[in-house]
């Protein structure tokens, strides 16, 4: 049974409303796009949608209680919630620097979770803001 899926293109403010007809993993047709980028976006979204995940990880004895992190590359969309579970399990020790690897090879994807902020060691008792 072919499935019809509606998508809004995110490449520009026009936001073309597109309709993709899918047969399993095979794309039969894409309608409604105004440029090549729309077609490419629709294809990628229907076969292998990916996202960069950003969040925070707990920090011990830092000047702030959390450090911002991201997946170094986009990960499959279906793995976002499992990725969050991994992130929430983590706790790192200050100092943390931008680019430090927080989780290596996230869930076997070969993609690391890295720090996106600098958290120096606290010189006093930790204060939450």
């Amino acid at each position: 049974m072919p499935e019809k899926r509606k998508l809004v293109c995110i490449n520009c403010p026009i936001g073309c409303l597109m309709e993709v007809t899918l047969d399993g993993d095979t794309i039969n047709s894409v309608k409604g796009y105004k440029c090549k980028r729309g077609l490419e976006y629709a294809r990628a979204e229907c076969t292998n949608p990916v996202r960069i995940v950003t969040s925070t990880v707990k920090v011990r004895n830092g000047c702030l209680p959390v450090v911002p992190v991201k997946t170094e590359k986009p990960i499959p969309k279906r793995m976002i919630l499992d990725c969050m579970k991994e992130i929430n399990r983590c706790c790192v020790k200050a100092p943390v620097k931008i680019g430090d690897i927080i989780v290596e090879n996230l869930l076997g994807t070969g993609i690391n979770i890295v720090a996106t902020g600098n958290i120096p060691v606290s010189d006093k008792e930790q204060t939450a803001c």
Partner: protein
Amino acid sequence: MKKVDLVVVGGGPAGMAAAVKAKEKGIQDILILERENSLGGILNQCIHNGFGLHYFGEELTGPEYAARFIDRVHQMKIPYFLETTVLNIDNDKTVTAVNSTEGVFTIKAKSVILAMGCRERTRGALNIPGERPSGIYTAGTAQKYVNICGYMPGKSVVILGSGDIGLIMARRLTLEGAEVKMVCELLPYSGGLTRNIVQCLDDYNIPLRLNHTVVSIHGKERLEGVTVAEVDQNRKPIMETAEFVPCDTLLLSVGLIPENELSRDAGIKIDQITSGPVVDDRMETSVEGIFACGNVAHVHDLVDYVSNESERAGESAADYILGTNVPDRKETIVVTAGNGIRYTVPHLIRRQSLYRGTVKIFFRVADVYRNVRLVVRCGNNILVERKKIKVTPGEMEIIELKDKALQAVKAGEELVVELVTDKEGL
């Protein structure tokens, strides 16, 4: 009294870019004054990605984007004071500030750059009726709690307003385990970027209710729920559609206001529409030698544009201090927002600043339009025109005027930016 060539008020993306540029242009004696305990401004709490595509040619998170400029401030040894609040700026460029080590102090500057950014509109500004429980936050405050302080503002959430911060927070709170019940938007369209609607709402099946608003707030100690209703064409709630939505948290993402109390005290002319200073193409305000850039001048969609604009302000301040390339303030071309345009920045172009080659006019349209032309004209003479399939108030438009086009315009003449609807659609 301490004397400094250039004082920059605010150490966010605008202030840092301006200071770095001024230093590059030969100003040695600079001081940045920052209210918070670190440089970087609001970028530090914007941990999501999508910054820097235009400026750095790569996709960064907010803290990473900020860090690039913080590193430059350090490398260039530009001095800054943290946890320092500016209390007053005089039109003779005397800056009064306070912090816990120096007490109240004054600095006499040759030039001042205003880079104070903007503030969120609050519940008080909206006059939402109802009780006054805890659990009502602006989206940016909630963002700071989650991303910097490491705690959650609540468990079940309604978001009013579909600005980008609200959309980003809908996803952020969902990822951290809260239930985001809906995002209500008073207007028939969202003010946020399409990308954010898709990746922050659609990805997590969070409903976006257009033409809806919060008409009442319930709860004695803690928020217990809100009443949501549809609105008619005049944005009046249709009470028959009212619905109680239980929640313990209400986030407001209902607009940003440039923070210009200091500018007003300095006697700087403020544009009623942008709520920012009236500026020329060099980002100079109505007070000679005081410049403004970033969200204090007008609210931007992208920090990349803030960096560009602030570099222009930094360069202009350097020129002013060194006395080079300073245009005659009497030789002025006025820029006016015409049909379908909400505002333009700059408001003025100095005739003699055309040596820079091009002048960029930033503006927002007043409504969503399809198949239009954006036009810059002087009298009946069309200088530039751009065809657009769709324009929305949420996306800042930019038109670049080449010096050739501008040379025909005389001082005292007016440039009109306007939107022309074609009778035959594309």
